């Protein structure tokens, strides 16, 4: 017996950059692989994470509705835990697929649908912080040098 599930995936932005269709197919494909049927799948949002996950500061959310058997859920969970591109997922049982979600899925399938390029803010933690800090220091030093130069001129 299969039930309807709502699954929210948090996907690595790098995978989205490589291609939205492929990124979406990678999660919907997994559901089908485990004997499920995808009823709706769409990009929910791309946003800054409340806290870094696997050193990513941003991520793309994909909302999927599908039918799965109990056995399928168990095997799907196991595989998702091992999938690198899926940073987090939330799998919930629901009564029915909201009609609005099916519409939104259709809208996304239309040819003129474009996925905005994820902002490049999600660089690896340490590297980003260091380069930023260095840049700040450099600016400060310059400012000091300039003000000293001015003072020197006034004295002369």
């Amino acid at each position, binding site marked *: 017996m299969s039930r309807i599930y709502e699954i*929210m995936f*948090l996907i690595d932005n790098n995978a989205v950059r490589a291609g939205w269709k492929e990124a979406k197919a990678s999660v919907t494909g997994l559901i089908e692989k485990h004997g499920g049927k995808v009823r709706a799948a769409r990009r*929910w949002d791309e*946003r800054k*994470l*409340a*806290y870094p*996950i696997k050193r990513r500061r941003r*991520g793309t*959310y994909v*909302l999927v509705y599908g039918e799965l058997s109990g056995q399928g859920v168990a095997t799907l969970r196991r595989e998702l835990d091992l999938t690198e591109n899926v*940073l*987090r997922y*939330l799998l*919930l049982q629901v009564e029915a697929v909201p009609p609005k979600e099916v519409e939104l899925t259709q809208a996304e399938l239309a040819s003129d649908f474009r996925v905005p390029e994820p902002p490049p803010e999600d660089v690896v933690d340490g590297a980003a912080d260091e380069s930023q800090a260095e840049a700040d220091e450099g600016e400060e030093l310059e400012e000091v040098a300039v003000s000293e130069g001015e003072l020197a001129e006034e004295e002369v």
Partner: protein
Amino acid sequence: MMHDRFDRFEMPTPERVQAKDSDLDYKNVELLRKCVGGQGQMYSRRRTAFTAQRQRMLKKAIKRARHLGLLSFVD
């Protein structure tokens, strides 16, 4: 007059959150933000003025949102 445990204290500016049951969902991050404090801690029932049932739904929603990185555990 009826007394319950909620009127033992004078309520300090109760910030009542307006919400329908169906709104108490992890996807409704805007609303959930109103139910947590600056450090990300959940507000008590005294603060949200929710029924016990709703507060439980809120708890679920907040915890799910935190898991997905939509809300912070602590900030």
